[in-house]
C-alpha cells in the first residue's frame, strides 16, 4: 500500500533521515516507533508532502507520490492526523467533519454562490455523511459545539473522524495516544481496529508501547534517522538492537 524507498532528509547541516526504506502492507496496522528525535514526524511530513525529501521516493499503491503537493494526497486516499491535533477550532464539530468530505464533493464558487440544484443535493449528502461519521465516532450529540471547546480526548476523536470522512485507503496517525488517559487509549485501540476492519490501512507513530504492541501487525523502528529494525511486535520485542537502543533505556 505504502512504500518508502531510500528516504533521506537533510536540514542544513543536520541529517534527519538517512536512507529509510520500508513497505506497509495493505489492510495492516503498522507502527513506527523510535526514541525522540528519531525522525518519525519528519518521515510523516515527507510522506504527506509537507516536507520534500532530499533523496528517495514514496509510492502509494504503486503510484509515485514523491513530489505531489499535500492537497493532492487526500483525493488519492492518503490522510493524516497531527501530534497536536490540528482542528478547525473556530468551526463546529460537524463542520470539521464536513471539511473532511471536501474531496468527496465538487461544488465550486459559482454553484455554491448561486445554490445550483447539484450543489443543494451535494450539501445534503455532505451533511448526512458527516452526521454518520459523528455517530461512528460517538460524537453525534456534540455536533454543534465549537471544536475549540472540546475536551482533548474528544478533539482527537474528531480529528480522526474528519480524516476518515475523506474515505481514505490509508490513514497516518501521529501519536494519537498522546495526552489520552488509559481508558481513552483503550477506546483508541478499539477504534483503530474498527478502522482497519473497515478496510483502511493504518500507520501510527507512537510512544505508547502497550498500544503499539497491542494493535500493530508490523512495526518499524527508527533510531537517529535510520531504520533500525522491522518486523512483528514479537520480533521487535526480542530484537537486541532495538532493546538496547530504545526499550531497554525506557
Amino acid at each position, binding site marked *: 500500500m505504502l512504500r518508502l524507498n531510500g528516504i533521506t532528509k537533510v536540514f*542544513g547541516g543536520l541529517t534527519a533521515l538517512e536512507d529509510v526504506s520500508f513497505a506497509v502492507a495493505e489492510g495492516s496496522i503498522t507502527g513506527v516507533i523510535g526514541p525522540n528525535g528519531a525522525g518519525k514526524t*519528519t518521515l510523516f511530513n515527507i510522506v504527506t508532502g509537507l*516536507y520534500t525529501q532530499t533523496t528517495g521516493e514514496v509510492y502509494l499503491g504503486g503510484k509515485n507520490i514523491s513530489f505531489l503537493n499535500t492537497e493532492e494526497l487526500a483525493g488519492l486516499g492518503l490522510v493524516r492526523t497531527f501530534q497536536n491535533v490540528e482542528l478547525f477550532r473556530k468551526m463546529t464539530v460537524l463542520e470539521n467533519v464536513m471539511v473532511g468530505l471536501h474531496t468527496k464533493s465538487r461544488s465550486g464558487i459559482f454553484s455554491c454562490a448561486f445554490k445550483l440544484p447539484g450543489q443543494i443535493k451535494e450539501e445534503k449528502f455532505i451533511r448526512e455523511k458527516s452526521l454518520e461519521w459523528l455517530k461512528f465516532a460517538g460524537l453525534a450529540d456534540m455536533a454543534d459545539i465549537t471544536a475549540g471547546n472540546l475536551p482533548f480526548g474528544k478533539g482527537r476523536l474528531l480529528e480522526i473522524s474528519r480524516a476518515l470522512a475523506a474515505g481514505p485507503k490509508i490513514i497516518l496517525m501521529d501519536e494519537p495516544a498522546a495526552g489520552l488517559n488509559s481508558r481513552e487509549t483503550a477506546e483508541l485501540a478499539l477504534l483503530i481496529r474498527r478502522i482497519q476492519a473497515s478496510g483502511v490501512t493504518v500507520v501510527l507513530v507512537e510512544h505508547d508501547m502497550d498500544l503499539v504492541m497491542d494493535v500493530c501487525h508490523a512495526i518499524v523502528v527508527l533510531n537517529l534517522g535510520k531504520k533500525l529494525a522491522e518486523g512483528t511486535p514479537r520480533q521487535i520485542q526480542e530484537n537486541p538492537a532495538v532493546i538496547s537502543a530504545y526499550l531497554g533505556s525506557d
Partner: protein
Amino acid sequence: MDKFSQLFQYILSGLSNGAIYALIGFGFAVIYNATGIINFAQGEFVMLGGMLTIFFLNVLKLPLVPAIILSVIISTIAGVLFERLAIRPLKDANPLSLIIITIGASIFIRGAAMLIWGKDTHALPAFSGDNPLYIAGATILPQHLWIFGVTILIIIASRIFFNYSVAGKAMRACSYNPRAAGLVGINVKNMVMLSFALSSAIGSLAGIIIAPLTMVSYDVGVMLGLKGFCAVIIGGMSSGMGTVMGGLLLGLLESLGAGFISASYKDAIAFIILLLILFIRPEGLFGKKETERF
C-alpha cells in the same frame, strides 16, 4: 559633461534618500530581529521626528539642537508607549489581530498628528544653511552632508552597540533564541522595549535630517515607512550592512528611474521593486536563505 553632472546629481540625491531609507529599514530590522514583529507604525515615528522638531522650532521657538534632541526623546517615548500599550498585551494574540492592531495604532498616530498639526506641509530649515557646494558640476547641499554624516555615525554606533556592548549582545541573543536568552538571565521584555526605543529614536532622527530637503506633513510616514520596509526587505532583514545596501540601492534605482524614465512615477518605482522582491526573492538580495525548520 552636462549628462555626466546630471547623472551625478541623480546619484547624489538617490544616495541621500537611500541613506534615509536605510535608517528607516534599520528600525524595522531591529524590532523584527528582537520580536519577530513588523512594526507597521515605523513610518509614523519618522514623521513624528520631523513634525515635532518643526513644532519646537516654530511654536516654542527653541534653538535647533534642543528641538532635535527633544523631538527624538519624545518620539522614543512614543515608541516605548506603543510597545507597552499596543504590542505587549497582544504578544500571544493570533497574527491577524496583531497586524490589524499595529495598523490601527499607526493610523491612530497619523490621525493624532493630523489633529494637532493639520494637513499642511511644513518645512524645516537646513541645519547649516543652503549654500551649495559645487563638486564635479553637481550641487551638493550641506544637508546632504548632514544626512551622510549622521547615517554613517548611526551605523558605526550600532555596530559598536551590537558587537561590543552588553545590551547590544543581549539583544542579538534575544533575536537568535529568546527562550535561551531568558534562561541565561537576559530580561527579554526589556530587550523588546529597548528595540522599540532604538527603532523610534533612529526613525525620528531619519525624519529630522531629511525634513529640510523634503517637506513634512502628517502623512509622510506611510510612504517613507513603506520605502524603508522595501530597503530592509532587499537587505534581508539584516540589522547591518545588508539593509544599508538595500536602502542605497533603492534610493539609487528610484532616483535614476525618476530622472531617466519618468519623474511622476517616482514613488511607484519603490513599490514595484518591493513587490518584485517579495514575489521573487523574499529573503532579500543580501540576506541568507533560511533553511526549513522542524
